[in-house]
């Protein structure tokens, strides 16, 4: 059964160049692009107005931005290899200079922030996976070596028990944060992995990339549960709805797809653009219907909400 998502609004030309990453809080969307400033858009007001522009955040541009569940902390990673920590008070973001300084020597590409904002996980260009404790001055508490393939993406399970990393050689690894061990090296993808994402309950890991197929793994056994086929181009980004009922994906050819976990079928496809959609995110569940945001090479944020029929 297909579902309908309606265009709900957009922030057109939010950035002068490609938007590479989005992060959401309960009231805002943060967008990061090839220009130095991070932009903050309100999701509580109509038209999704720009509420803050963090100028000069990353001189060479920014490729990853992540937030904790409360929306009180964000971490961004720039093309210069610079990691910055941001804190939010009353909807206004400011640089957390102390933490940024603590992480000055951290060399990671992709980053993920734990729900409570305390732990930062990152994967480096030479495939190392690290965890840093922001509650302890940014001290590194985990350091996992993999086979050295470029770490393109990383995620932390919402319960904090697992880290997953995706790599250029198609490898996907799951690490236990408690034991520091790697229970699984997951098979199934042979081409570069571009996104990994844990389901809200942490039971499923979704991984996808240049093979265009989204692979679902059982995190307790490492077995493949399903392959979601339908994208005609590289899959760049994945996001789970808050209930875990739906998985959202985007691809290099400008498509965003919604997949039902019930049927393992694609239930909706959005194609507003032919340009790469670098990032997609569900907005946190509110009293309104389910909604998501997409952004990429067309430099705009596009918002969609579920058609409720009423």
């Amino acid at each position, binding site marked *: 059964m297909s579902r309908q998502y309606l265009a709900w609004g957009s922030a057109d030309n939010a950035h002068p160049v490609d938007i590479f990453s989005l992060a959401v809080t309960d009231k805002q969307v943060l967008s990061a692009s090839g220009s130095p400033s991070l932009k903050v858009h309100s999701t509580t007001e109509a038209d999704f107005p720009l509420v803050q522009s963090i100028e000069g955040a990353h*001189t060479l541009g920014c490729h990853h931005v992540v937030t904790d569940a409360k929306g009180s902390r964000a971490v961004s990673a720039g*093309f210069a*290899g610079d990691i910055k920590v941001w804190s939010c008070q009353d909807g206004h973001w400011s640089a957390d200079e102390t933490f940024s300084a603590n992480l000055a020597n951290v060399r990671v590409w992709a980053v993920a922030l734990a729900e409570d904002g305390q732990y930062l996980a990152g994967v480096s*260009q030479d495939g190392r996976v690290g965890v840093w404790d922001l509650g302890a001055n940014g001290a590194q508490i985990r350091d996992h070596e993999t086979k050295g393939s*470029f770490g393109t993406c990383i995620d932390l399970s919402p319960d904090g028990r697992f880290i997953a990393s995706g790599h250029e050689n198609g490898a996907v690894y799951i690490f236990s944060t408690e034991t520091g061990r790697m229970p699984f090296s997951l098979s199934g993808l042979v081409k570069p992995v571009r996104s990994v994402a844990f389901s809200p309950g942490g039971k499923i890991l979704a991984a996808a990339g240049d093979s265009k197929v989204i692979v679902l793994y059982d995190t307790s056994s490492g077995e493949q549960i399903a392959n979601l086929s339908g994208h005609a181009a590289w899959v760049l980004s994945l996001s789970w709805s808050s209930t875990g009922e739906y998985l959202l994906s985007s691809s290099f050819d400008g498509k965003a797809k919604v997949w039902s976990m019930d049927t393992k079928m694609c239930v909706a496809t959005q194609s507003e653009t032919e340009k790469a959609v670098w990032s997609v995110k569900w907005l946190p569940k509110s009293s309104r219907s389910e909604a998501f945001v997409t952004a990429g090479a067309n430099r705009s944020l596009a918002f969609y909400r579920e058609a409720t029929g009423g």
Partner: protein
Amino acid sequence: MDLIQVNNGSGHVFCPIRMDMCSTTMSNYCTLKLYNHPMAQPSIITHPSMTGDAGESSVRTYIDNTLTTLLHELSLSPSEGQPSVTLRRRTNPAGYKVNPQNGALEAIEPVVSYRTYSWPGNSAFEAWRFTIIVRILSVIDEAIRVGQLISKRRVDPWDIYYIDPAYFRSQHVVDKIVDDLAYTIGVDRAALNIEAAGKGLVTGPFILRRDSQIVLDARSSAQGGHQDTLIPRIQENDEIDIFGARWVLIIEKEAVFHRLARNNYHMTALAGKGILITGKGYPDICTRAFIRRLFDFASNSNRRPPPIYALVDGDPDGISIMSTYKYGSLAHLHENARLAVPGLKYLGIRISDAVRVSDVSEGVLLSLTPRDRRKIHSMLRNSPIWADDGPEPEWRVELQRMLMLNVKAEIETIYERDGGLEAWIDRRMFRQA
């Protein structure tokens, strides 16, 4: 024992500077004592750069005076002389900018310094510099005298270097001193008759006119599929007429140029007849000067100048090569104003072009090497061209996409597309025209 041959204006003398005098042990042996020639003093330097006959005569005057004075100094007793040569030099500027008037990459504040090399000097290094300056001067002197008698004779800096590679140590040393000498005398490098042989290739319907005479007519050879006309060295009053050409395509790679030329693309393109040019990687000055002259002449004629496109690899060097054509190079900042081609358009290839091809054939995308990533970082960080507020946001974001996906792609990947490279260029030119 090597001796430097020096012209004092009236004949040949042998200046007793041994080629191995750069060693400290030989310094004691030296009895050469000279003082600065007035021409080398900052106050007497002429501005702006002269070209043509005026330039040549000032070069001759400078060399004659300098060498004559050096010889005079030789005759003085060791206690009286101050043997030295002062060069005006360009030093690394604090930063770079794109000049909005001419679209050229330039120094923010050109830094000029003066450096005096004395004999025997305070160090072996200084003594060595002094002797190579004198030696290069003698080569220039000879080139100009021979050039006057026979025809324009050009000396390749490589040729100077190969006279004695161990002595000159690197071609860069020769290059830098030739640059400094030109700047000191206040002429273009061309006036010293020292220029590298061109390496660029061109094909397509054009003629080169010099003093109203046609010296190169590529129209018939273009028809016949003759592929590889070496790009001629452009002189002061040369005119390049590309009547009939609807486009100019600058190609990074020689192999791609040969493919297009062999397939007669310059005569059969959908957009009409055109000119194919390659500088074989980073272009030399000769190639850049040719393109600029071609563009200038087309702009000055009544016709609308044809668009000039760049076809480069989807990697940091490809983007950097395109930038060298359009804005100029860091190595020759002072030349960029006369060589820049501000209207240059980015035809491709972009990572997105190659990603589409990768759907149907394997291996078209390559991973960036650590060197590639460092090169992109350095481009984004150090050049105004790829700056956030710079003139080329599309180039900037293309470099970022490479970093983001960790991929690069070569022009040859487009061979795999429907209709091959030629059909792809047809479509792309049509879209961008």
